[in-house]
């Protein structure tokens, strides 16, 4: 009897350890995370719609029916990434996520002059290189310095009513997500 009680106690302690281990390892081994589902659909540096706009199931959990969104994956180890979009939408916002889907940086259209979306994501060391010789194409860009390698960039666009759908689609589908050499 004593032995059984002892076994139950050890079992509970073990359950605690398993709980902590599973919890901490889950982010590393999850295949259903945002990166995984985006990787199934599109290559790096290819912006895709992640909402139900194209009649397909949403790629990531993006519930708000009044928003459309587009995302692309990038790898800063290959160089900075330049994101540009033009169009007229009532509100847009951008989030940069790291490989495991954590939001590392975000801003919205109020952060830019005339609401144009033009920004460069790069690491601090790449920023030093860029400062030495500013490329012509970066003249009007916002620089976002993040200390990550692989990452996801997502642009959300507000669609107040169906008449805005076309404008939002155009804004998101013309979005460029290009690697700068």
């Amino acid at each position: 009897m004593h032995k059984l009680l002892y076994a139950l106690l050890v079992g509970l302690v073990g359950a605690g350890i398993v709980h902590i281990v599973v919890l901490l390892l889950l982010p590393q081994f999850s295949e259903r995370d945002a990166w995984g589902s985006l990787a199934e659909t599109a290559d790096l540096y290819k912006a895709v719609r992640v909402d139900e706009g194209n009649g397909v199931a949403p790629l990531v959990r993006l519930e708000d029916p009044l928003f459309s969104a587009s995302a692309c994956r990038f790898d800063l180890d290959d160089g900075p990434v330049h994101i540009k979009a033009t169009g007229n939408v009532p509100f847009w916002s951008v989030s940069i996520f790291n490989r495991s889907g954590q939001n590392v940086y975000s801003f919205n259209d109020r952060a830019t002059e005339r609401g144009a979306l033009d920004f460069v994501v790069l690491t601090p060391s790449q920023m030093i290189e860029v400062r030495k010789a500013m490329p012509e194409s970066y003249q009007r860009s916002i620089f976002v310095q993040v200390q990550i390698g692989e990452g996801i960039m997502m642009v959300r666009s507000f669609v107040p009513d169906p008449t805005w759908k076309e404008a939002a689609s155009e804004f998101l589908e013309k979005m460029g997500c290009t690697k700068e050499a």
Partner: protein
Amino acid sequence: MLKTVILTLVVLSISIVGGGASVWYALKANEGMGAVRIGQWTAFPSLGTADADPYSKARVAREGILALGRAEGLTFTAERDANGEVLLRQCSYEIQGPFPPARFWTLYAADPSGKVVPGGEQRLGAIHSYQFLRFTENANLISAGRHPAPGNWLALSGSGPMRFLLTFFDTPIASGTGAADIVLPTITKTGCDA
């Protein structure tokens, strides 16, 4: 000898089943650490950021969430009305009260699996502040239900449990520490279809 083997098996099965099930349960619950509760509304300001607790991090990875950033907005979820009863799609509710400062907000209903409750055939099941009708003395009132209502109507359909999601965009409550001090609208049940 056999006794030792059985006891070892007991220890192992309790550990693995108990540990796994407790993680699963903890991730399913909408409570958890890092939650800010205001009235019936719950928000997770640190969800999906680097300072989130391990439970939020595991949830983000498991469900493939790409959370709203602090410069984007903050979502509040309500699963119960002011009397503590579960929100049902076949009931009508009045959502009334102050809305904290934000550039705009959106409100919609979702079923327990996270799918948006459609608003019927012709109507989107969501409303936002740009199309919001304000009453005299700045009273804010939203009627949510399956039957059309005057003023601000959030159309619902179907039956079963649901939750309301109220998201504030470009708002100081998401970026500051002020999320705990704000006042949010109250949800009152006005009636149910039999």
